[in-house]
């Protein structure tokens, strides 16, 4: 594999506007309910006493996530047909002509990336807007983000620029699949364990 493309996500500034989601749906003509890019809203909180005062003790941040085109993708490993495969640019993609729609990739992926196409009976997923990349353009989600919190590029360059954090709540540990994503955590992410935060838009994503 010559290169590995990936994303940088600045969760600390993501406003959760979901323009990236909408741009992805528009570019890929996705059916209702099929989200190749999803924005997870993490929030929880209450009050805590500091001295004689009660102060807000909350966490609230968003994580914009698509397929992470992992270095070791479990969807590819577990796909019985090899329809799910990784190309020379490191893009994990589905060959609809081979897919049997067993949805095993959907079970396997800890990032919820493969989505079922009810009409065709096969899986679908983010292909990093491969056609845009060929034309030298950014993927639709990156180009549309009004907060400029998404960036696309070769992983080596992204890691050099932003470090190597690839796991923030609610994402899984990155050690097994080695996701091609770098994330800048929101400052309140550090309090996730003490406040027991949860994804609050489960039904949407």
């Amino acid at each position, binding site marked *: 594999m010559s290169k590995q493309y990936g994303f940088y996500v600045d969760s600390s500034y993501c406003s959760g506007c979901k323009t990236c989601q909408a741009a992805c749906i528009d570019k890929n003509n996705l059916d209702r309910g099929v989200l190749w890019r*999803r924005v*997870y809203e993490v929030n929880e909180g209450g009050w805590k006493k500091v001295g004689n005062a009660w102060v807000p003790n909350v966490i609230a941040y968003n994580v914009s*996530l698509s397929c992470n085109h992992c270095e070791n993708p*479990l969807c590819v*490993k*577990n*796909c*019985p*047909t*090899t*329809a799910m495969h990784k190309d020379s640019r490191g893009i994990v993609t589905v060959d609809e*002509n*081979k*897919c*049997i*729609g*067993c*949805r*095993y990739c959907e*079970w*396997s*992926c*800890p*990032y*919820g990336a493969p989505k*079922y*196409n009810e009409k*065709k*009976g*096969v899986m679908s997923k983010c292909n990093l807007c491969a056609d845009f990349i060929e034309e030298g353009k950014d993927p639709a989600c990156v180009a549309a983000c009004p907060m400029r919190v998404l960036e696309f590029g070769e992983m080596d360059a992204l890691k050099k620029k932003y470090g190597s954090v690839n796991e923030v709540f*609610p*994402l*899984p*540990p990155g050690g*097994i699949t080695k996701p091609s994503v770098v994330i800048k955590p929101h400052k309140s992410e550090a309090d996730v364990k003490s406040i027991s935060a949860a*994804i609050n838009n489960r039904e949407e*994503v």
Partner: protein
Amino acid sequence: MRGTELALVFFTVIIQAAVGMTFFFGIAGSSAVWKNSLAANKIVSDKILYLICALFTLGLIISFLHLGNVKNAFYAFNNLKTSWLSREILFASMYGAFLFLFTFIYAKNLLSIPLQNIMLILSAAAGIVLVFVMARVYMIEFVPAWNSMFTPLNFYLTSFIAGGAVFIAAFSFLLNKYGMQGEQNILKIMSAALFLLILAGLIIWLLQILFLSNGGRGAVDSYNLFIQHNILLASVRIILLIAALILLASFYMGLKKGIVSVNYIYIASAAAVIAELAGRYIFYFIFAKIGV
């Protein structure tokens, strides 16, 4: 739970029951039931083998219902190198091939008894590997409720409980129908074995739930799904298993006194099979990942 997973509930339990029945068929064979040269014995054993083949075929047909695009099914063998699902399909094919070949040879009495036994052993061995491979399909790294030794353990228990239940019910029915006598010993052994298997299955299943409640992220999500949505079904499963245990014990005690209460066996078997289906439904329902 999606409809496709309902198909998987039936597919896995039915195929596993066929594997369990193959074993019970072998046990009955080694207990000299089939070796008896009485024509009636041959009728009974042939019919039980046909039932196993029918169950396997039914399971296989149901397995296609969870596919979105059946016309590509042939590609499912493509990834034997890394995909347990590919391997499951391979071993299901192998088990089916051995089973049908053995049934044909046995029913037509084509080969010598030792060669027939070798075929039976090969079928049972392929079945045992198949159940293990089926379990491995579900042992996904980020799904703690599935990724533990409880999965293969429960799959094997389902094999022997559902398979044993169908076998003993069919065996009792056919013995009753063809008026064969003197087979109470094998019924005694099988009802005792089924009693112990059900008891073990119940204890292990309860231990698994306890394990989930004390687990980390993902495991606790599964436990919450169990508590919030499956308590009623779980209660039904426990009641059915306890009822099956009581009926099997009564049947066994009856046999000691020379009474063959076949109705007890029919009800116990039905209860055990329904309980296994309920257990498998819950297994799929509590799917929760570490991640999103």
